[in-house]
């Protein structure tokens, strides 16, 4: 996909005047937040589970090579294949090779953000292989030729009315008078349309929420059951996963699962939690003949040992974006690449470069709500600040901003000059503002006064007033 992160501001301006988007984003604000709060409050050990989850991931990341090798050995033992993909291109080519080896014409797909990251659908289509998204949200945006705007709710930027229109346009064989007024009826229609695709598919591709080193198992967490059909019915199952998805043991998995759905949708558990270990065995009633896992690095290993390592604890629950006021305002597409919201603001510069994604870690008020709800306690604002530091030291931020800041810092470091300058400037500014008490327009502050009045200074500075009060007190004492 085209990287549109450099034009974040332009994207934001367009998003802010989109009435459909505004309506759709109301669901994020009301639905997710409330449900997560209830789920967290209902579980007394929720906070301890967050600590435990963080500890598990920290331990894993400190020994990532070891756990990945152990995982690979177990997958191989169970008859599966592990493919190491250093780049997106490597991953795409591995998928293609596997598909071509079974002469695949149709590929069904469960929800996978890695698939978005490696831009798999366009690539498969260019090689005459038809990808069919089976997750309802992914299916909708595939119909529309869009990308996900949220990592667990890909079509959250759309209203029901928009989706109804898309269904009527795409599903031409169905009676035009049918009722599509409820999400459930739309889901039923999508199910009916997709059902035949599962049987037509030669290859099923899913993501993985976790990989378990102890057993060589890949785990998907879904609500629609589409993931199971995608991975069980075709002859070949390909798992796309990035390297940080590994956890050491099944018991570790169980612990983290207890915070995942609660943080994401407010469910105790998602409807389906499916564990896959290797291809079909002789006694199994069903399952794929081939089981492949593609382990994608794509820049992640270079985050290890840096101030961005903590980001690799992310379990992709989406809580950070659900609680982000900036995400609520502009929606996921504004971020201009695969991962939106606070987690995207940290991860995206790591994966595509801070020169392209610099706006993302800057477009945050540092309100800290993301960190407060992150089940893995990832210090997202701190890492956004680290990106700003890298930008600053490389001189990537705009010159006007740099000069303004350096000028401020120059005075802040020199108290006497600072005192002199402010004692002169503030009373003058106050004089101009005294008639209204505030300014509607103020030179050099148009970013502020475009939308709000600027309160005028009260009069002189506090320090001027204080000095006078102290002098009066001194005078009072001596006389």
């Amino acid at each position, binding site marked *: 996909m085209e990287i549109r992160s450099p034009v974040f501001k332009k994207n934001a301006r367009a998003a802010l005047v989109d009435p459909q988007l505004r309506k759709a984003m109301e669901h994020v604000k009301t639905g997710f937040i409330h449900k997560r709060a209830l789920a967290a409050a209902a579980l007394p050990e929720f906070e301890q589970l967050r600590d435990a989850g963080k500890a598990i991931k920290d331990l894993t990341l400190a020994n990532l090579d070891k756990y990945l090798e152990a995982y690979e050995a177990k997958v191989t033992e169970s008859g599966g294949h592990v493919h190491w993909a250093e780049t997106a291109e490597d991953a795409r080519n591995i998928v293609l090779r596997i598909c071509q080896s079974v002469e695949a014409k149709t590929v069904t797909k469960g929800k996978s953000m890695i698939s978005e990251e490696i831009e798999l659908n366009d690539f498969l289509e260019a090689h005459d292989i038809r990808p069919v998204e089976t997750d309802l949200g992914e299916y909708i945006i595939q119909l529309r030729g869009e990308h996900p705007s949220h990592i667990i709710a890909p079509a959250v930027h759309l209203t029901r009315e928009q989706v109804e229109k898309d269904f009527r346009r795409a599903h031409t064989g169905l009676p035009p008078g049918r009722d599509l007024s409820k999400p459930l009826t739309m889901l039923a229609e999508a199910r009916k349309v997709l059902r035949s695709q599962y049987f037509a598919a030669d290859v099923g591709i899913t993501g993985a929420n976790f990989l378990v080193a102890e057993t060589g198992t890949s785990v998907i967490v879904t609500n629609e059951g589409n993931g199971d059909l995608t991975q069980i019915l075709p002859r070949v199952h390909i798992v796309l996963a990035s390297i940080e998805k590994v956890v050491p043991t099944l018991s570790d998995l169980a612990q983290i699962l207890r915070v995942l759905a609660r943080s994401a949708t407010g469910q105790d558990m998602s409807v389906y939690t499916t564990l896959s270990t290797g291809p079909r065995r002789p006694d199994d009633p069903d399952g794929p003949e081939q089981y492949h896992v593609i382990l994608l690095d794509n820049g992640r290993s270079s985050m290890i040992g840096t101030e961005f390592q903590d980001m690799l604890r992310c379990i992709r629950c989406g809580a950070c974006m659900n609680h982000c006021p900036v995400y609520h305002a502009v929606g996921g597409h504004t971020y201009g690449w695969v991962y939106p919201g606070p987690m995207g603001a940290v991860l995206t510069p790591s994966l595509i470069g801070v020169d392209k994604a610099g706006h993302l870690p800057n477009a945050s008020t540092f309100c800290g709500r993301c960190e407060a709800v992150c089940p893995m306690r990832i210090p997202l604002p701190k890492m956004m600040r680290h990106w700003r530091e890298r930008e600053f030291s490389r001189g990537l931020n705009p010159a006007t901003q740099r000069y303004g800041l350096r000028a401020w810092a120059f005075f802040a470091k020199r*108290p006497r000059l600072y005192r002199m300058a402010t004692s002169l400037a503030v009373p003058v500014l106050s004089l101009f503002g005294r008639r209204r008490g505030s300014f509607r327009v103020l030179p050099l502050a148009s970013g502020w006064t475009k939308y709000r009045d600027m309160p005028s200074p009260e009069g002189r500075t506090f320090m001027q*007033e*204080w000095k006078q009060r102290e002098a009066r007190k001194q005078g009072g004492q001596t006389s």
Partner: protein
Amino acid sequence: MNQHISQSRRVGLFVTCLVDLFRPCIGFASVKLLEDAGYEVDVPMAQTCCGQPSYNSGDREDTISIARKTIEIFEGYDYIVAPSGSCAGMLKKHYPALFQDDSAWAERAKAFSAKVYELTSFLTDVAGVTAVEAALAGSVTYHDSCSGLRELGIREQPRKLLASVKGLELKEMEDSDVCCGFGGTFCVKYPDISNRIVEEKTKSIEASGARMLLAGDLGCLMNMAGKLQRQGSSIEVRHVAEVLAGMTDTPAIGRRKG
């Protein structure tokens, strides 16, 4: 411990740059509240800014110089109190992080930070103030500024003190814990987004039915006051310290005298 506290009574007031420049009455209200609680208040003249604008813009070097100066100026006091959750959070939580790899300064920064408090939390948690001598006839709503709330855990403290103000009725707004869109330099770097966020905030403020908006951070207050005023709202906006100190004779934020 209690005995130690009763002997340690010297507070260095970190005025904050916004209060110094825009609204001295918050500084004087803070001094009154601290003096009423039995503390001796000093205002070191050499203080400037906590360094957040530099820090949050990625300028670590300047931030460290500013932080060193602030620590030097204030480390001699028993307590350092700021009428701002954001600046107090910077001094208390971020200064130690800035110096954690600096063997000469790490301990010094830690010792300094341990003595830093936001005003309302100092009054309730350290000074043990349970009621103030103030009256305000009317309804107020309280916005929880982000840093105070999430970095310092300030939520109940200002409400507890406000409950003791005679005649005051607290009408909670919805989403009082959601950011107002100020975000320091954010509001001028991304004015369009900031505007949408503050619009949502003023909607909640108006819906509360309160006639006055209070908070503990002047940056957020100026943002919300400026927006309310642009929208033609009659809601008065003040720092919580003004009400707690009974010093509401000055015009509200952004309003003219008389």
